[in-house]
């Protein structure tokens, strides 16, 4: 997993994804990060182990960036963590740079919604009582279908 890949081992550092300067033709930066919550469906969560099909996930994340750029005229960066994350740590980061806020928000929202349906990643939740389970998910779609 190289430094330039979109899948990263361990928690993401959101600030790292903002270091790049804003292009001068852009006026809106929208960012979304998903973090591990301490409760899910009433059970106390201690962490999540994220599993990925690396080759297909990298390809799909790149496709999301390209498709969002085309649909919204925005620059989009998408990253996802794999491995063990603790409560409060960031598992996914979407960074969008666009001309105006409407496109920035739309591209950011579309990208996270699409990621959840198209990228082969699985959450294995760990609970305070020592149990662990893979969450139910959604049958994988292609990026174009989203």
């Amino acid at each position, binding site marked *: 997993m190289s430094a330039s890949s979109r899948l990263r081992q361990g928690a993401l550092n959101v600030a790292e994804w903002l270091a790049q300067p804003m292009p001068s033709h852009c006026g809106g930066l929208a960012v979304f990060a*998903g973090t591990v919550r301490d409760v899910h469906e009433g059970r106390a969560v201690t962490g999540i182990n*994220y*599993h*990925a*099909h690396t*080759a*297909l*996930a*990298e*390809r799909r994340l790149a496709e999301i960036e390209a498709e969002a750029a085309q649909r919204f005229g925005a620059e989009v960066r998408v990253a*996802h963590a794999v491995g063990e994350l603790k409560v409060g740590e960031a*598992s*996914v980061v979407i960074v969008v740079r666009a001309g105006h806020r409407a496109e920035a928000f739309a591209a950011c929202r579309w990208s*996270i919604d699409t*990621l*959840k*349906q*198209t*990228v*082969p*990643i*699985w*959450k*294995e939740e760990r609970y305070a009582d020592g149990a662990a389970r*893979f*969450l*139910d*998910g*959604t*049958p*994988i779609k*292609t990026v174009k279908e989203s």
Partner: protein
Amino acid sequence: MRVTVECYGASQRWCGAELVSLDLGETATVADALGRLAERYPELALRRDTVAVAIGDEIVAAGRTLAEDERIALIPPVSGG
């Protein structure tokens, strides 16, 4: 023909392993491999319509013919984010 099945996510639980070996006839397809798995693993059989199959970095169609020693990946419903 022998193929190796990599089980991702909950499919590890359904099949009880991360890797499963299958012996299939010549000209076997992805659908044939899924059919054999469904015979062996009732939990997978229940969810067969929700599972996709990947080879390399591509989702493949059920009619895709398999090659000797090929590796295929089971992609159960995804839950990233």
